[in-house]
């Protein structure tokens, strides 16, 4: 087979990039622990409160260990339920110190929603009947907006929350 010299270089470049990208997948999956957000864990969408994590008293931010937090959220049209504070008021901001490991657990009783914390890697789809999880280290301080990035109905643009990372 007679291949042009340039064609050989191009083929080496193409196959080389394929090998590099495969290595990156291995690095991401086994070294960095990057996995899909949905773990095929199901939940009854008609009765999400029956699940331990989504009981009304367990919603919102909880410190599970030193520097480790869990945030349980019910996303519904058109609101993120981040729990209630000690005065019984609705929480709209999650406050965590910088460098903490935060596990977000989100589900929905109605339609498909998005859960993105703009400016971070937290970005997942929230489907009725499933629990979406994403664990992240909050490396940078600042205010990050939680936005719904899956069109969920007429009030879609009103669906947001806030995460504040402080020093």
């Amino acid at each position, binding site marked *: 087979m*007679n291949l042009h010299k340039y064609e050989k270089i191009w083929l080496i470049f193409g196959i080389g990039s394929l090998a590099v990208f495969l290595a990156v997948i291995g690095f991401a999956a086994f070294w960095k622990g990057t996995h899909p957000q949905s773990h095929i864990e199901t939940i009854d969408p008609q009765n999400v409160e029956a699940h331990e994590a989504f009981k009304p008293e367990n919603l919102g931010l909880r410190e599970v260990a030193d520097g480790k937090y869990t945030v349980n959220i019910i996303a519904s049209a058109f609101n993120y339920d981040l729990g209630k504070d000690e005065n019984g008021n609705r929480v709209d901001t999650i406050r965590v110190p910088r460098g903490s490991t935060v596990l977000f657990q989100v589900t929905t009783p109605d339609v498909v929603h998005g859960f993105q914390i703009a400016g971070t*890697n937290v970005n997942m789809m929230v489907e009725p009947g499933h629990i979406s999880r994403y664990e992240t280290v909050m490396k940078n301080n600042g205010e990050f907006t939680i936005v719904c990035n899956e069109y969920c109905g007429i009030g879609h643009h009103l669906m947001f929350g806030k995460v504040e990372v402080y020093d």
Partner: protein
Amino acid sequence: MKNKNPKPQHTKSNESTIHFKGTFIAVMLLGVIMVASWFGVYALFLSR
């Protein structure tokens, strides 16, 4: 009437004289842009 001077047929030796340098530079440029932008986005993912 037969053509006394038929056009030369495309032969192997003819093909090798076609210049591919521009094509090569164009595809390599495209390939480098694709790989570089991919790693740029991945670096952004790792930094966040």
